[in-house]
């Protein structure tokens, strides 16, 4: 009989440390309030009653980067805003993830000009890209679930 079955008979549930840590990180991920433009409205709709992101642990959106894990960049990033964005990203403590929501944050969207950064991955590493202009709240929730799968597959060494 393995130790797991022995422990289970005694009333202990066992799992690997990696699984436990990733499970905890997934279900208590606090996003940072970073709505820039129209996608922010859909993010708010995702947070509201009908499509509820607090089902996934994202009950509160922290306005301060010091207490948040996830940055959902929703909206166009201008060249003037780009250094501010990088500063806020650097202020977030690890482990941290980035979801690029919408077309403008992923690739510049319909704005291909001097003023808009063509994709926020020019500034910071992105984990999940959510396409749409703006993406429906369900699409954002799908993006969050994809991020959860990614986090579940991470090893301890990623953020150690």
């Amino acid at each position, binding site marked *: 009989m393995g130790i797991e079955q022995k422990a289970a008979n005694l009333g202990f549930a066992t799992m690997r440390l990696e699984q436990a840590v990733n499970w905890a990180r997934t279900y208590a991920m606090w996003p940072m309030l970073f709505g820039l433009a129209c996608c922010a409205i859909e993010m708010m709709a995702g947070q509201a009653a009908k499509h509820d992101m607090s089902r996934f642990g994202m009950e509160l959106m922290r306005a301060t980067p010091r207490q948040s894990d996830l940055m959902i960049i929703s909206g166009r990033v201008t060249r*003037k805003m780009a250094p501010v964005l990088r500063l806020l990203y650097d202020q977030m403590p690890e482990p941290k993830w980035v979801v690029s929501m919408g077309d403008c944050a992923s690739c510049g969207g319909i704005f291909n000009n001097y003023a808009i950064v063509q994709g926020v*991955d020019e*500034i910071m590493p992105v984990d999940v890209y959510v396409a749409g202009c703006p993406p429906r709240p369900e699409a954002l929730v799908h993006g969050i679930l994809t991020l959860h799968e990614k986090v579940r597959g991470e090893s301890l060494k990623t953020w150690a």
Partner: protein
Amino acid sequence: MNEELQPAVTALKERFDARAEEFRGQTTLFLPSDQIVEACQTLHDDFGFDFLEVETAVDYWPKQNPRFHIVYQLYSIQKQLRIGLRVPISGQTPSLPSLTGLYANANWREREIWDMFGIHFEGHPDLRRILMPHDWEGHPLRKDYPLGYEEVQFSFNAEEIDQDKPYAKE
């Protein structure tokens, strides 16, 4: 033309070198740049145009010379009348007097015109960039400013563009 505007237009034509144009019920007066402040002062004091609604600029390069037109639109709240003024001006860094002494909301509009067109306003208390980053070079809404777009990635050139694009590493 709206009959109530007629006295204002006549007064401006007498005192300044104004040329009037009318289009679809909207009256526009063309004025030279050194008379614009006095003309607006006259309209403000004598004819009750107390609200500056619009102050922007247009660049007509290379089709028209003078190249820039500064467009003002004054509104009278009491009488509900609108009148438009245009100041044609040209040059690489043109300059004209500021309306901030008369209308306080001209402050940010003139900052925007400076930022986007490079038209300097004399007498403006704080003329600096408002929309672009403060160390930006160039004035984006001029017609000779490059569009600044990134080449569109199709399947045949996607990898080449990808290699040159600056991605953040960490």
